């Protein structure tokens, strides 16, 4: 029985991680976005969004509209950028749509941010998603986690301890 008890404890600990991960992947599938929740990292969208805001994305829109706030990633650079759609060109029935974006707080559009020779974003392939909702400031925890190693392991340790000691 001791082996069984230990295995049960191990599983209970594992459930913390597996359920969180599966929840994340499910949300990812539903929104069709590889990162359905992002944290604003820069101040380029002030005063609309501040560093630390949590954004909820949706990536099943047929096409983007001028004025939408989108999150995109440039191939080769892993940081997601949250900016507003300034201009768009589309083919018949929006089969293909190209976007030009600009941060509200930036003086120029994003052309300088795109990859070499890239003039526009492809709505279908370059976007992580369109911002549909947000929560102010709560994302600062994840900024701390990713930027402060002690915080990350401290929090993880707390989660593990709490799951091991719950007996109710």
């Amino acid at each position, binding site marked *: *029985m001791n082996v*069984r008890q230990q*295995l*049960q404890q191990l*599983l209970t600990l*594992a*459930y913390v*991680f*597996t359920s969180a*991960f*599966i929840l994340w*992947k*499910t949300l*990812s*599938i539903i929104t069709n*976005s*590889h990162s359905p929740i992002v944290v604003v990292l820069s101040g380029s969208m002030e005063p609309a969004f501040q560093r630390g805001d949590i954004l909820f994305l949706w990536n099943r829109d047929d096409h983007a509209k001028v004025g939408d706030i989108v999150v995109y990633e440039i191939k080769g650079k892993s940081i997601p950028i949250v900016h507003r759609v300034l201009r768009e060109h589309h083919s018949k029935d929006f089969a293909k749509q190209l976007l030009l974006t600009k941060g509200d707080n930036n003086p120029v559009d994003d052309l300088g941010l795109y990859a070499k020779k890239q003039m526009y974003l492809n709505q279908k392939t370059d976007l992580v998603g369109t911002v549909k909702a947000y929560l102010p400031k709560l994302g600062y925890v994840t900024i701390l986690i990713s930027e402060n190693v002690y915080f990350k392991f401290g929090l993880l340790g707390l989660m593990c301890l709490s799951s091991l000691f719950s*007996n*109710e």
Partner: protein
Amino acid sequence: MSSLKKTNLDSVTDLRQTTDDNLPAALTELGYDQSFKLIDTKLALGSVTVVIAGLLFLVDKKYEFNESYNITVISILLYAIFSGILLYLNRVYKDVKYIGYNSKGEKITIAGWTKKFDPIYYTKITLNDKTTIESQLEFKKFFDTLGYFNREAFVTVLKGQITKKSQ
């Protein structure tokens, strides 16, 4: 070893936990052999869900979102199925702490739970999946004033409950 451990008499959770831990030993004295089928099934199901999640994690690390889309959907569905079965088992066998068979092949299922601040161990004993006996056992009957668990007293109390309905 467990008989030397003191239980916090003020914590209903601790009292219940100690009682649950001593159930197998007590029932062995009453002539029952524990059946681990349910426990092992639940452990296996749980392990499968962890494996599915682990494999999905590896796939997620290695492949792009679009490439791994279909596999991800399948994995999530499989995870949901196994998780669902596990949840169903937990619902059907709610609070079941012991399942055993005696030498005559009779089955006994013991479910035990407590309510938040009552020092009472509520039990539902099912014999051969047919007859059920619901009883309320006061912890003070088998814990002494220092917090030590009294195995003999517990066995006597259990025996009394089991033979009650069979009369």
